[in-house]
């Protein structure tokens, strides 16, 4: 009985805690923080403060990704292609943790001097060999004593986002439970396109076509954050692809951010997308305060200039307009064609009145896509994926982009107020942010607070729909231009 190491028994029983505790302190505390954040997101989603459709699966996924850590078996560890992250832990009291530094790597010269922290090897193949063997005996540089230890790699059985090797990918799809959905639906943007189809089915382009100038003008102004954030992000040290990805957050359209990040900044797409979706949840709460701060109550009561006769655009006109716009946009930005196709096919199906397709897209694609998007994003939010020095910059730039876009929309609203002879409510400017239909609802709600009989929802929806198309255009512009200027 005396020979039993109780600490070791507890460690074996609670492997999640052991792996968490064996992690470097920063990783460990980030993991704990993310578990708490996940719980907070679920709670806020349930209360309706944040978008429940997205936040509940995302929050739970976040908890699972950080709590469900384990030491991978040697084969899975090698297949994960994160061999360089493996570490050596001494068998005796597990307090001595060392990492591997590979000869020829950028930090090799510096790291190889720190013999108490790093074990230097000739190539990653050597680390793979140690992982397979499990055991490694090293000679301590200070004491010159032999110490026996285990070589391990921490991970989970959810998803490996950056695996490239074909063989490893196939192997991991049989082990990581969400890896097939990640590879076949997420990393190729299928989920983003499904959600965009769903948005298309919800949109009535008639609102945009009824007042094209005001809709397009205000929506363009509301892209101010998308334009301004790009140079700011470059000044902050991000490369063109990363800068474009975080700038698209200004358009407040999740699928666009996902699409751009996967195309232009694959290494950073998890933090960029998480930041985008977190902030999109916050827009509900923050924009009303911004409206009250920037627009005086007297202007919030303004009635929009009514049309001489009610404008009713026929379904045929809407379909013809959809066909022409989709074709022209695809011809101009072929790289954005999947997004344009998804959006306009949704609109066309809606206007054609094909009920079975509408139900399929609205109830299956949109909700299924949103569910898996939330869940996969949550599962990708492990401490080791998110712990990047650029995340703090992304957090600041994300909120900057959304705020500048909102201010740009309100400026557009003020300009329209002047152009129409003070017969346009500047609050409608916030609807230029393409969060459909949330921003249009926010505008109407804020106006109804001070003037319950003023109805601006049709105008706001027109601007909102135009915002979606404008942000798709900006996505196309960035995806087309960034590889050109980056080359």
């Amino acid at each position: 009985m005396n020979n039993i190491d109780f600490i070791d028994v507890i460690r074996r029983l609670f492997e999640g805690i052991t792996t968490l505790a064996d992690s470097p302190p920063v990783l460990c505390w980030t993991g704990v923080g993310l578990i708490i954040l996940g719980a907070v997101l679920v709670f806020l989603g349930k209360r309706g403060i944040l978008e429940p459709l997205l936040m509940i699966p995302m929050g739970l996924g976040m908890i699972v990704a950080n709590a469900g850590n384990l030491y991978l078996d040697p084969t899975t560890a090698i297949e994960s292609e994160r061999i360089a992250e493996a570490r050596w832990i001494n068998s005796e009291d597990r307090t001595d943790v060392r990492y591997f530094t590979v000869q020829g790597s950028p930090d090799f010269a510096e790291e190889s001097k720190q013999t108490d922290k790093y074990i230097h090897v000739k190539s990653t193949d050597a680390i793979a060999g140690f992982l397979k063997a499990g055991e490694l005996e090293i000679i301590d540089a200070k004491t010159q004593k032999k110490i026996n230890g285990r070589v391990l790699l921490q991970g989970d059985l959810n998803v490996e986002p950056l695996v490239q090797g074909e063989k490893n990918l196939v192997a991991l799809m049989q082990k990581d439970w969400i890896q097939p959905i990640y590879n076949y639906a997420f990393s190729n943007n299928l989920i983003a396109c499904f959600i965009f189809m769903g948005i298309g089915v919800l949109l009535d382009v008639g609102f945009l076509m009824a007042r094209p100038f005001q809709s397009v003008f205000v929506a363009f102004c509301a892209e101010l954050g998308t334009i301004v954030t790009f140079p700011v992000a470059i000044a902050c040290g991000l490369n063109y692809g990363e800068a474009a990805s975080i700038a698209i957050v200004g358009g407040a359209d999740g699928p666009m951010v996902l699409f751009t990040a996967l195309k232009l900044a694959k290494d950073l797409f998890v933090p960029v997308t998480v930041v985008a979706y977190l902030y999109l949840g916050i827009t509900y709460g923050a924009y009303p305060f911004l409206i009250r701060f920037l627009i005086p109550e007297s202007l919030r009561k303004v009635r929009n200039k009514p049309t001489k006769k009610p404008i009713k655009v026929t379904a045929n006109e809407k379909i013809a307009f959809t066909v022409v716009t989709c074709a022209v946009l695809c011809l101009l930005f072929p790289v954005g064609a999947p997004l344009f196709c998804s959006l306009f096919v949704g609109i066309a199906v809606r206007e054609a009145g094909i009920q079975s397709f509408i139900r399929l897209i609205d109830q299956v694609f949109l909700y299924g896509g949103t569910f898996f998007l939330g869940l996969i994003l949550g599962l990708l939010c492990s401490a080791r994926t998110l712990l990047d020095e650029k995340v703090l910059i992304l957090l600041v730039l994300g909120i900057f982009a959304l705020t500048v876009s909102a201010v740009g929309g309100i400026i557009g609203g003020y300009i329209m107020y002047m152009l129409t002879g003070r017969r346009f409510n500047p609050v409608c400017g916030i609807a230029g942010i393409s969060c459909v239909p949330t921003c249009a609802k926010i505008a109407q709600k804020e106006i109804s607070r001070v003037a319950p009989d003023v109805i601006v929802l049709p105008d706001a929806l027109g601007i909102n729909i135009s915002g979606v198309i404008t942000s798709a255009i900006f996505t196309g512009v960035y995806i087309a231009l960034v590889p050109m200027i980056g080359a």
Partner: protein
Amino acid sequence: MPERIRFFVLRERRNFSFVELMKKIPRYWITGTAVAVAGVIAARVIAPELKDSHSVYIVVKTLGHLVAFAGIFFIARGISKNTES
């Protein structure tokens, strides 16, 4: 009716209906689409030919995009005006 004559009559009818159809399409559709296509041609066909002079290339490409958007806007504006009147 002999086969040849019937063929001509049918063709005449088809031509007639096509012209009628074209007349029925409001002018803003044709003009807007033509302008948009012209913009696309400028951006995607003409601009790449002018790559030797970078500034001219950028100007033509940007103008092409703007003209294409103007075409779409023209259609939307036409529908709005037409429906209102």
